[in-house]
């Protein structure tokens, strides 16, 4: 980490906009508004990470032994509880700091489908969004441009698009070709994956050089992370303060506008950042938490929470997977991202199941170094073992949708506090029968493909051992009814006229697509709305 505690972290005077959170949502908003000439200040709880240390992080990731978290997550600052039926390992994949969780993510960026926005009217399940795919379509294109997405228009299930992706697609892998044949036999159509990863050099970054450790760290910088837009914002004159965790938001006497974000600096000093507009962009857990922590006499249940929906309707995607081995080489572990998917089972025919997004993995089984570093035999015996264990694994994954339920929520733990004495978040999470049924269906499809390949199946992740994919959504949902939702279609809170929320917490339903492209599109849309008020 390069940040020092002596940096100037005093508030900006006369800021037009205060953005809380320097992940992808906050970075895009800050870059767009600062490019338009507005005075922007960004506050983030975590540090600035030095890209020069990413290779060291990679070694720490690849080598067992060091126990410190790769991105510093954990300890009192990031403490949480999990009290639902399904345990939730909150810190496994989120990052606090400049760049946010895009420092850790894999970088899959696909648009949600038209059906995702109208589940109630089409199927009588969950809720419709107050916006359509068409409303978001130009912002999807802008988000793809922002992420330099490498993709192709070969997906017959994808929603309509207006232009090619900014960069050429990554070609399919060798194992994709094995899958393609098997999928054809069982009637499944496959297609490419849009990746937020440079397939060619751009002004921002080099092309991918194949380190293969995309998640949790890309040493080359070819994978998009939000530091690119933080850099852009700073070049436009924005101030970005790291290690400045916001403790609460304050509002005016009428309770109609936010007046200040109160944050703490490493020396323990409290500061008040005032601004004309505030944008909360701290993810699906910390955003509702901060609103709940900002309760006041006027808003006793939390700021912007007259609907009671803040923190509720927490959703994630569930992982479903099947893996095994073939009696031939499968050429895994050359790269750390996927090049083939199938969205054939994405749109729902009726209310019996939710969405499934099928993935064909390029990184099944252990790499030689994984085997070697835990080996109990050496020399020729070790090489023999590596040859036996590496090279013939094959696996499919899937993201499975869960519909929103108010009882799945982020709430404040009544007993435990963080390093600043604030109640920690409590994640209450469970899976309903429809979700479990959909996971089972995903497993059936995956099994049929692997059996067609002739694989010996040796693991299944199904409804009983599934886990989250760390896509936190739904906890400040969008809607037109202020009594049932937190933000309006332009992501402004119903209750406070100068407070917007950027991020996946505004999702009404989560679909089964990785959410970052959609949250980026919504953030760009929110930025337009903020700009129109300045």
């Amino acid at each position: 980490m390069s940040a020092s505690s002596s940096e100037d972290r005093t508030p900006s005077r006369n800021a037009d906009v205060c953005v809380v959170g320097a992940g992808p949502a906050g970075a895009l908003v800050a870059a767009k508004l600062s490019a338009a000439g507005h005075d922007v200040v960004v506050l983030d709880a975590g540090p600035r990470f030095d890209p020069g240390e990413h290779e060291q992080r990679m070694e720490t990731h690849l080598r067992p032994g060091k126990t410190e978290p790769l991105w510093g997550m954990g300890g009192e600052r990031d403490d949480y509880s999990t009290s639902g039926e399904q345990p939730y390992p909150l810190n496994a994949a989120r990052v606090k700091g400049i760049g946010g969780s895009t420092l850790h993510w894999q970088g899959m960026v696909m648009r949600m489908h038209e059906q995702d926005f109208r589940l109630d009217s089409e199927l009588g399940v969950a809720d419709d969004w107050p916006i359509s795919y068409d409303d978001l379509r130009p912002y999807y294109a802008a988000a793809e441009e922002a992420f330099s997405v490498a993709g192709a228009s070969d997906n017959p299930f994808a929603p309509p698009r207006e232009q090619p992706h900014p960069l050429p697609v990554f070609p399919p892998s060798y194992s994709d070709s094995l899958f393609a044949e098997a999928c054809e036999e069982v009637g499944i159509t496959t297609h490419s994956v849009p990746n937020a990863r440079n397939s060619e050099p751009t002004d921002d970054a080099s092309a991918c050089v194949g380190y293969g450790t995309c998640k949790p760290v890309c040493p080359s910088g070819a994978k998009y992370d939000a530091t690119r837009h933080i850099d852009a914002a700073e070049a436009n004159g924005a101030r970005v303060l790291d290690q400045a965790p916001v403790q609460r938001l304050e509002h005016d006497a009428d309770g109609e506008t936010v007046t200040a974000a109160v944050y703490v600096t490493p020396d323990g000093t409290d500061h008040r950042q005032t601004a004309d507009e505030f944008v909360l962009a701290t993810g699906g857990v910390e955003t509702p938490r901060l609103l709940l922590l900002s309760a006041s006499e006027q808003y006793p249940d939390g700021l912007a929470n007259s609907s009671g929906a803040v923190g509720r309707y927490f959703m994630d995607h569930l992982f479903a997977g099947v893996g095994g081995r073939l009696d031939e080489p499968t050429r895994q572990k050359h790269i750390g991202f996927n090049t083939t998917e199938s969205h054939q089972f994405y749109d729902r025919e009726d209310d019996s199941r939710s969405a499934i997004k099928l993935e064909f993995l390029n990184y099944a089984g252990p790499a030689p170094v994984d085997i070697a570093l835990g080996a109990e035999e050496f020399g020729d015996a070790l090489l023999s073992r590596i040859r036996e264990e590496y090279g013939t694994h094959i696996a499919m994954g899937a993201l499975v949708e869960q519909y929103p339920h108010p009882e799945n929520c982020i709430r404040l733990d009544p007993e435990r506090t963080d390093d600043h004495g604030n109640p920690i978040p409590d994640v209450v999470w469970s899976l309903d029968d429809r979700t479990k049924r959909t996971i089972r269906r995903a497993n059936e499809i995956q099994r049929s493909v692997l059996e067609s390949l002739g694989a010996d199946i040796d693991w299944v992740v199904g409804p009983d051992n599934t886990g989250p994919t760390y896509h936190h959504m739904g906890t400040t949902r969008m809607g037109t009814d202020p009594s049932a939702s937190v933000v309006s279609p332009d992501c402004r809170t119903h209750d406070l006229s100068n407070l917007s929320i950027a991020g996946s917490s505004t999702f009404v339903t989560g679909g089964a697509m990785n959410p970052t492209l959609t949250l980026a599109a919504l953030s760009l849309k929110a930025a337009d709305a903020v700009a129109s008020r300045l």
Partner: protein
Amino acid sequence: MELTRRDALTALSAAVGGGLAGCSAPSVDSGTEPAELDGHGVDTLAALAAVLYPNEAENVRGFVKEYASERVRRSPDHGSGVVDAIRVLDDYTETIYGERFADLSLAQRREALQEMPIATADPVPDGTDQQRVRYYLVNDLLYAFYATPTGAELAGLENPPGYPGGTTSYQRGPR
């Protein structure tokens, strides 16, 4: 297979990062004086690598000298751990065999790793003697070999995780 200087530089790149050409100053760790691997240190690591690497690997000493000397110099904190672990290993073999590790026969060195025991120890940088030897010596040398094409290719992987081998090999079928 002949281990070359290029293999060693590739391993170094995986361990301490790229941009090694012309480098002179320690750049990875901070606040620690550069450590140095003396001739005995190189001998010890080469003797250990001869146990860890497969028989078909040739010029092991040259590879280890090139890799480990620079690794220790460029990462002083890590280098101190390496130097300390060599002392631990020698203390053990001097007690049991009356000789330092590098002076043992290949069979004795294999036996020592099993008996100490290193083979079953978890790699822990601030752990017990065995755990530190596993982390700083055994796993360092295995990482240099198998996190690069040098060793991974023997198992059919030209571009292993940790190595920036480009984006064409994943598309190719088996040779």
